[in-house]
C-alpha cells in the first residue's frame, strides 16, 4: 500500500469509528423520544439503563423480570428508520408472547403485566432493511 493509500485507509477507519459512536448516541436520543411518546398522557420512567449492541446477523438476548401491576414499554432502534429492529418476548417456557415482526417491526410496544413473569427478549436486525450497526434498547415502566 502506498503512503496515500495508507493515509486514506487510516482516515476511513477513524471516520467509521467516529460515525459509529455518533450513530449510537443519536439512536439513544431516538429511543428516549419513543419512551416519552405516550398518547395516553402518562409517562414511562426509564429503568435507568441503556442496552447497547453492535450486531449484524446474530441475535442479542437478555433476561429480565416484568413485575405484576406494572405496564412496561420496550423501545428498540438501530437508526433513523422506525423498523430496523425485530424484538421478540418469550415466557419462562420459551413460548413467544409477542414479536413486533407481526406489527411491521414497530419501534416500541407496551406490555400490561398483571402477574410477575421472568421473560427473555431477543433482538435482531431485520436483514432486509439493515445488515449491521448499533442497536439500542430502552425499557420504561409506569404504575
Amino acid at each position, binding site marked *: 500500500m502506498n*503512503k496515500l493509500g*495508507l*493515509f486514506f485507509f*487510516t*482516515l476511513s477507519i*477513524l*471516520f467509521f*469509528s*467516529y460515525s*459509529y*459512536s*455518533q450513530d*449510537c448516541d443519536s439512536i*439513544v436520543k431516538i429511543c428516549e423520544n419513543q419512551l416519552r411518546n405516550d398518547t395516553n398522557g*402518562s*409517562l414511562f*420512567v*426509564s*429503568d*435507568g*439503563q*441503556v*442496552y*447497547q*449492541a*453492535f*450486531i449484524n446477523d446474530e441475535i*442479542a438476548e*437478555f*433476561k*429480565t*423480570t*416484568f*413485575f*405484576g401491576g*406494572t*405496564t412496561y414499554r420496550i423501545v428498540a432502534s438501530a437508526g433513523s428508520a422506525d423498523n430496523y429492529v425485530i424484538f421478540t418476548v418469550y*415466557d*419462562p*417456557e420459551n*413460548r413467544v*408472547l*409477542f414479536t413486533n415482526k407481526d*406489527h411491521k417491526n414497530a419501534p416500541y*410496544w*407496551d*406490555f*400490561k*403485566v*398483571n*402477574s*410477575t*413473569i*421472568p421473560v427473555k427478549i431477543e*433482538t435482531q436486525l431485520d436483514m432486509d432493511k439493515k445488515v449491521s450497526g*448499533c*442497536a439500542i434498547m*430502552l*425499557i420504561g*415502566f409506569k404504575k
Partner: protein
Amino acid sequence: MRLQSVVFLSLGVVSSFLISSCNDDRKSTDNEPQELKTHVVDSTSAINAEFEGKIFSIPSPVQTAILLKQASGSFNAELINPAENADKYSTTYSRALNLGVYGADLGYATLFGQQKESMNYLKALQTLADGLSIAGAFDKSFAERFERNMNQQDSLLIIVQDAYRTGDNFLKNNKQKDISSLILAGGWIESMYFACQLNALQSNPQIIERIGEQKQSLETLLSILSGYNTDNMNDALLNDLNEINDLFKEVQFSYTFREPVTDASNHITTLNHDSSVIMSDELVVAITEKISALRNNIIG
C-alpha cells in the same frame, strides 16, 4: 520513519476534525452535561460494546419503592442511608455502590414527597458522581430541573432515572462497566433492604412476593459482577451475594400460561398468565438477615 509520519499525520488530521466536530456539537446543545459529551472524542469507545444479553437487566429500585409505598403507606426515615455519609466514601468501589444506594433512597424519599430529604440526597449524589467522573449526569442543571418539578412526583422520578441512564450510558461507552455494575448492585441491595425491613416490621404478603420475585434479578446481578470483577474488587461482594443466592434457590415460582391479548391499534399487549412465589417464613427471615448485614456493611 516516513511511514510512521504518514500515520501520525493522518491521525492528527482526523483527531483535529473529531475534536472540532465535537466542539460544534457542544455549541448546539449547551443545555446538556458537558463532561458526558467528551466521550465522543474517543471514537472507538462504542465499537466493542456488546449487547451482553442476560447480564444487563436489573429492575429499577424505583419500581420496588413504588410497591413499598402502596404496601406500607408511610415514610420510614430509619430505612435510608443518611445523606451526610456521602463524604466518607473515598474509594471508587464504595462510591459506586453507594451511588446506587442513594439512587434507591432518593426514589423512596421522592415517592413519599420528602422534599428536604430529597434535596439532601441530590447533594449526596453529586458528591459521589463527582468522584466517579460522571458529575455531568447529576450536575447543576439536573438539580435545577429537580427543584423546578418538586411538586410533580412523576416528573421527579423521570428526571432521576434519566440522570442514572445518562451516567450508565457514559460509563458503558467509556469501558467502565465495572463501575456501572456496582451502581446497579447498590440500588438492588438497598431496595431489597427496604422490602425486607418493612416486611420485618409488619409482615406483608405483597412484599414477601416481591422479595421472592428477585430470584432472577439476583442471578443476573451475580453474572454482571463476576463479568466485571476488575482486580477482584468484587470478590467479597460476590461471596455475600452468593450466600444470598443459595437461599433464593429454595424459592419456588409457579407459572401457568394464558394467551396474551394484543391491541395492535394502541401498541399494547396484556399478559394474562398466572404466577406466584412460594417461600417459607424461615426463608424470608434468613434472606432478611443476610441482606441487612450486607447493606449495613456497604453503607459503613
